[in-house]
């Protein structure tokens, strides 16, 4: 069973969202997602300042197995990216909820967070997919 921290929110496309306060969230991919992908070898992230609407392609994760799009779980502007991933993409596998984070976004519409899944909801979804 994969690790699904209860203090985070989730979307069905296997990204997690951490509320940092002041309308800022951190985004990454879940333990379940990294496990499905296998060893991650490249991560392509957007530029700081780029704006995204919910569902837009935010980046690409390439693993030994496949290339996989990462979708913006919420609308907003990128204010930071995890530059460590350029040289150490394996952080996505070893610490998906910590050092393997992808981007920070300043939300343009905080009400969108009402649609996110909590840990139980995401666990059920993973269960249903397996």
């Amino acid at each position, binding site marked *: 069973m994969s690790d699904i921290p209860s203090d985070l929110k989730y979307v069905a496309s296997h990204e997690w969202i951490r509320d940092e306060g002041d309308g800022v969230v951190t985004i990454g991919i879940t333990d379940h997602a990294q496990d499905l992908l*296998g060893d991650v*070898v490249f991560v392509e992230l957007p530029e700081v300042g780029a704006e995204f609407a919910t569902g837009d392609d935010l980046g690409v994760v*390439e693993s*030994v197995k496949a*290339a996989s799009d990462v979708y913006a779980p919420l609308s907003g502007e990128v204010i930071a990216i995890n530059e460590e991933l350029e040289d150490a993409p394996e952080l996505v596998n070893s610490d998906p909820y910590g050092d393997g984070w992808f981007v920070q976004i300043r939300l343009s519409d905080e009400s969108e967070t009402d649609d996110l899944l909590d840990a139980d909801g995401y666990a059920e979804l993973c269960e249903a997919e397996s």
Partner: protein
Amino acid sequence: MGQQTALYQKHLQMNAKLVDFGGWDMPINYGSQVEEHHKVRTDVGMFDVSHMTVVDVTGADAKEYLRYLLANDVIRLKERGKALYSGMLNETGGVVDDLIVYLMTDPDVAGEWFRVVVNCGTREKDLRWMADHTAGFDNVALTERPELAMVAIQGPNALARVISVVSESRGKLIENLKPFQGLESEGWFFARTGYTGEDGLEVMVPEEYVADFWQALADAGVAPCGLGARDTLRLEAGMNLYGSDMDEKISPLSANMGWTIAWEPADRDFVGRQALENQRSAGVKQKLVGLVLESRGVLRSHQKVMINGEEAGEITSGTFSPTLGCSIAMARVSAEIADTCHVDMRGKLVEVKVVKPSFVRNGAKVFS
């Protein structure tokens, strides 16, 4: 639930992630495919390859039968245990399967016989094909050996590590094995062959002993490795994968297997010979090359290869090379390809270098 090898319980104990592979439940990795890959390049790893099909070919006509069945010529096997890589072709020159054949006795003696190892995914087709082509040979017997489990131990320290866990007499036999030679010792078969581009052994063991052998190797520090690492290792070594890099519609001449065709003696008839001769005189239009992507991204099978904006072939196998730190691929392309071309990678054209399809041997990069 698929078929299980005699090592299935060991795989579960060692936290393997299992996938379906040709109807078998096989380990894809035991945690990290990339770490397993590095372990084989720098030390030693082991693979359960018990799903592969072993067929013994015996009888007074065994040699003449194989000389007809295979594009390579078993007459080249001049010493007990020597191994030969060959394609088994159909009448149109396509590849039914690729295989290894070992001479199990001294050459040219009464009772001379051979052992053939073919792919698991093609087992039924191959057995039927082999049986059908015994017609015309009075004395050939084909015996499948499903009771033999097989473990591949690969890497610079493979031989030493296996010697440390087997009996003294078996150790002596391993010490004296030449590359591409396999010999029997008290019911076990040790072959200095593999699918990784490293030194190593493929060991056939009666299945009741294989779990203890596997455990002894693990206790001696040999890392269990899955099919994931097996694929990145073989691709770095430039070794073909049946079904991806060639199949029944592809000529060995377009699959970097020209070296496995024994044209001489010219009067040896083998299945597919006429078709290959016709292809050779007409000129071969496509060849298998290696591609190297020096920028970021991973080449994947079926991506299109482009020359001057025109489609000129496609990738047959692509991956990230853990040893080189960049992506590599094999591609079947127009024979006129230059030393660079482009690949359509998810809608984006990226430039790649064209090299011979061999990237890493004995831990080191081989192309320039």
